[in-house]
């Protein structure tokens, strides 16, 4: 049941809507949705500031939502709760989330832009398929879906004054750059 390109775009738009929600809430704008049999089963966004917990990334929020719903995780259906589930996320999952997704047996990850500081699906290290694991199978992670939107929303977050930073820098002279070159 492979989704076609149009469906990928449709689902990434849903993930992007979650990123917009994060931005509106003053969070680093990352959003995601989990799709099973062409149906969205969970959507979430980054809540690290709200929950005072740097580990509450969008992916882990959504996974908890799925695991809290017995209808989505029928007991005994599979060793891996996400074996038939695809993740759409605006930014490449970080090393923590990439490992979590492998432990959950995710089928596939489609993401927007890559993350060369924390990326766990190739950005820094390939936790998804390059690192060996004694039991969890590797999964495919493909970037580039709605990549420009994903980059732009991050830029929109970073051009705004960040009053939470230890020593806020004046960003009055900062301009939002909109030009994006191919990767």
């Amino acid at each position: 049941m492979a989704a076609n390109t149009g469906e990928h775009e449709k689902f990434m738009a849903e993930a992007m809507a979650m990123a917009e929600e994060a931005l509106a809430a003053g969070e680093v704008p990352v959003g995601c949705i989990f799709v099973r049999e062409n149906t969205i089963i969970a959507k979430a966004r980054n809540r690290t500031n709200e929950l005072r917990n740097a580990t509450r990334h969008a992916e882990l929020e959504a996974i908890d939502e799925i695991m809290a719903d017995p209808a989505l995780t029928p007991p005994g259906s599979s060793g891996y709760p996400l074996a038939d589930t695809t993740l759409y996320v605006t930014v490449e999952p970080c090393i923590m989330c990439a490992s979590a997704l492998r432990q959950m047996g995710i089928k596939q990850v489609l993401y927007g832009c890559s993350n060369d500081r924390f990326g766990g699906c190739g950005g820094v290290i390939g936790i998804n398929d390059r690192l060996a694991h004694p039991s969890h199978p590797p999964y495919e992670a493909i970037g580039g879906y709605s990549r420009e939107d994903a980059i732009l929303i991050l830029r929109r977050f970073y051009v705004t004054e960040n009053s939470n930073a230890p020593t806020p820098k004046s960003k009055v002279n900062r301009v939002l750059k909109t030009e994006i070159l191919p990767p």
Partner: protein
Amino acid sequence: PDQLDDGWGGLSSVDVDSGSVSKAPFPPFFRGAVDDILPEEELPFERFKPPPEEETADSIRTIQAWAVDVPDPRSIGLMLKWLRRSDLDASELGHLKRVRKQNDTSTFLLSVSTSPSLSSEPPSLPADIPLPAPYLLPVPASAALTLTSLDLKNALWPTVYAPRRKGEVEPWTRGRARWAWGAMRAAVREAQQRGRDAGELPVAAYVPAPYQSDADADADLASDADDKGADAFMAHDTRRSAAHPLRHAVMNVIRQIADARARSGDVAEQPIHTSTPGDEEENDSDSVPPLNANGTNYLLTARTLFTTHEPCIMCSMALLHSRVKEVVYLLPMRATGGCGGGTCVPALPGVNHRFGICRWTGDAVLEAEAGLQVDASVDA
């Protein structure tokens, strides 16, 4: 300890051998003055030493930086003055010399470009100095730790030499070792009990109240796990009871701390960092904005986490996100661990926080064999 340096701090040669471990109730560092510094070989743990890196031309990590040639020596003074006033943040270039002289030409380093393929614009230059166009070149990503590395890096760009010195590792006092001993025992006991009584995986994580070298803290040291201060947090693995594969002890303890801070309201006084100063400059570039800011709320700054098993990659990165100071673990997880087993998360290039890793070799090993074994394929 040096002869044990096999690239993994000697960890791979260490085996738990109950027969050789003394059954004395207290290890030797319980004798002697609290504030005495313990010699490295008497510490109840071995520090993780990252493998030497960047000793060959292939292993030199580089970043792309914008540079400009200044052909006229008379312009150098003006150029330096302009650089000081410009808002080109040089924090990512602190390990490099700013100017390189070759023959009659001086070349100035201007700014970092993290993703050259995304960069369309070079930084703007002073209008009143005649200069050619700036260009990108690869420069070393970090200071040189050894003279071999320095030679290789200097060939790319003049680099700062910053060798690791022996004194750089933090000294431990007897008092602190006793504190750690108590903390590791507490974690071991928790894991044993949860494994035995509750059928959980026997894995626990403990963040004790920070060590204080005053007399009161000293009185607490040899005491039991029950004597947890308000600022101490203990959690165990609940993946079985919660039927959730990610309910690891470390994730649970981080959540516990976050919830406690949120409840007590003292977070209001803590700055919530959504960005770090080092990131700012990159945001000005044309690259993809960095994500080190992804919800950093430095829950574990200056804190030591004790755990019975080497944390998995997810948990190791969660600890990095939380800015833990150091992690002390008892049992290595060679296939799945994120602190030197499967990979070493804080040693990966690019990550913006490092934490210390210690493999416990002290007396808690006595208890380690009683019910703490988990399958080698488990992510602890």
